């Protein structure tokens, strides 16, 4: 429901609790992602960042709460309704998750072939363009096992961007990349966002990425199991009084700052 005159946010997380059986990972998470912004979900290892992303992209049902996609419920709807919303998402998985039995071009072409009315020749054309956008022109006929980890990430990004999604979810895009490749991937994400105008949600704990491309951030605390800080990462660094957030952003020992 649009409230007042302002359009609903692309993604609204409303009171989401994530649990595996009786083990609660995070409880009562609520935040909005504004149109066109890059939101970073950060936090220490094992705090439930990736699990939250899986709730936001429709893969795993939350134990409680809901996610609204431009005002439409993702989890209070039937499978078909959810499937329709999910077609507006692009998702880059941690290890790329390219379909190993297909070439890079086929990987990018598959969603295009499934969900558009393009002719097979046009599909190839568009898929090749997407691969060129991420700097993989000439690698169309390689299989995922023949290319490096960084290239797999970029190919995964090309596949996530295949249908020009409204919302792009990235699960640790720079994990396992060298500093230069990681920087290049960040720049790529920025320029794709700027040119295609999608909203981006990134899970990461790479500080250079967080400060480099994050418009806003939420920090998931592994111990209190909820959001302990939110805002622009650079401002958080200046202003946040939470010792754990401060320690995370400055890469220092927790407890170094007064609590």
């Amino acid at each position: 429901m649009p409230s007042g005159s302002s359009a609903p946010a692309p993604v609204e997380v409303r009171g989401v609790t994530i649990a595996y059986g009786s083990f609660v990972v995070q409880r009562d998470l609520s935040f909005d992602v504004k149109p066109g912004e890059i939101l970073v979900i950060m936090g220490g290892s094992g705090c439930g960042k990736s699990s939250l992303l899986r709730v936001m992209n429709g893969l795993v049902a939350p134990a409680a709460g809901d996610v609204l996609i431009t005002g439409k419920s993702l989890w209070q709807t039937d499978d078909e309704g959810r499937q329709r919303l999910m077609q507006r998402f692009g998702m880059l998985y941690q290890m790329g998750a390219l379909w190993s039995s297909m070439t890079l071009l086929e990987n990018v072409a598959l969603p295009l072939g499934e969900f558009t009315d393009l002719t097979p020749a046009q599909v190839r054309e568009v898929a090749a363009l997407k691969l060129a956008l991420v700097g993989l022109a000439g690698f169309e006929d390689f299989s995922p096992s023949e290319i490096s980890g960084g290239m797999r990430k970029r190919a995964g990004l090309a596949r996530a961007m295949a249908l020009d999604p409204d919302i792009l979810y990235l699960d640790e895009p720079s994990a396992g990349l060298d500093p230069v490749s990681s920087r290049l991937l960040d720049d790529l994400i920025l320029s794709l966002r700027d040119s295609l105008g999608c909203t981006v949600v990134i899970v990461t704990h790479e500080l250079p990425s967080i400060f480099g491309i994050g418009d806003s951030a939420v920090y998931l605390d592994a111990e209190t199991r909820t959001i302990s800080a939110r805002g622009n990462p650079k401002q958080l660094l200046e202003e946040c009084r939470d010792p754990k957030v401060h320690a995370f952003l400055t890469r220092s020992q927790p407890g170094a700052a007064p609590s």
Partner: protein
Amino acid sequence: MTPASISAPDAAGRAPRVTLARTPDALTVRLGGSWRLGPGIPSPEPVYREIDALPPARIAFDARQVADWDSGLVAFISTVLRQAAERGIAVERSGLPDGVQRLLALAETVPERKTREAESRSSWLARVGTRALDTAASAREILRFLGEVIQALGRLFRGRARLRASDLAQIMQECGPNALPIVSLISFLVGLILAFMGAVQLQKFGAQIYVADMVAIAAAREMAGMMTAIVMAGRTGAAFAAQLGTMKVNEEIDALTTMGISPIDFLVLPRMIALVLMMPLLTIYALVVSIVGGGFVSIVLLGLDVGPYVQHTRHALTMHDIASGLFKASVFGVLVAVAGCLRGMESGRSAAAVGLAATSAVVTAIVMIIVAEGILTVVYNALGI
């Protein structure tokens, strides 16, 4: 003063030594020699015994005689520290080498984290109940999977399923022609065994020529289909589970789901169709090879003539037998494919889980084959087929 000495054996003569010395208020642990993990370190038991015999007010260390050390010494000290802490005895650490003190401090800075919420151990009744509910849930899971597959088949027949012809062809190649060598070997041997077993019995009645009838009928109605199914369970069912399990580990299945492409249509359906199409063909082939195997024994080893053997085989074998055997084989094909795909799709996200999925796929398939065989035999019998 009650000196006591313990040491671990060391040929070099620089064995780690522990000497205990008492003053009225303190127990001094004197350490000497080489403390290395490789040659072994002494047990701290004697220190505990000394502490328990007469608890001292505090424990001190004297490590001036220690020649060299690694984490073996740190481990020894840290167990002594823990015992002392449990008994409320103060410990003086200043006699230890600086490096050891720093390592001990490092090990103690981060308190042990409670990683899981304490799971209270429930009563056996609750455990039986949980187990029963789990079993019911897993049965529901199988039914749900079957339901999804049937829905996907419906979509396929309405031409709406997303199935890649090239995938189907490749899987058919893998589970059909590529299985011929192993199916040949097994079927030939089964035919051979059937002929031997039958010949011994039939010889008593002078009815050896009926070996041909027996081999043909047994192979057509039961053995060809069942042996092929068991080979396929071990070969293809396990491969399906491992492929799908690995795709799950790599998040490839998640990637399909987020793309809005049903993994059932895209991955399970081609595997099931391929196996269901290939099973009857392999079974016919297995039947022929079994008859050849039986014939080999009868003609070469038992001295029957070729002509009568072929004649008997042709006479004994009816279309009826072959059709009923092929029907069974098709059912087995479905079962093997379902077991392999189901276990693969529900595999966990680790290398060990993929292995378990493959094992479980084979076990599930073989159990289902045997159960189905039993049911079908009873049904055939009741219907007089």
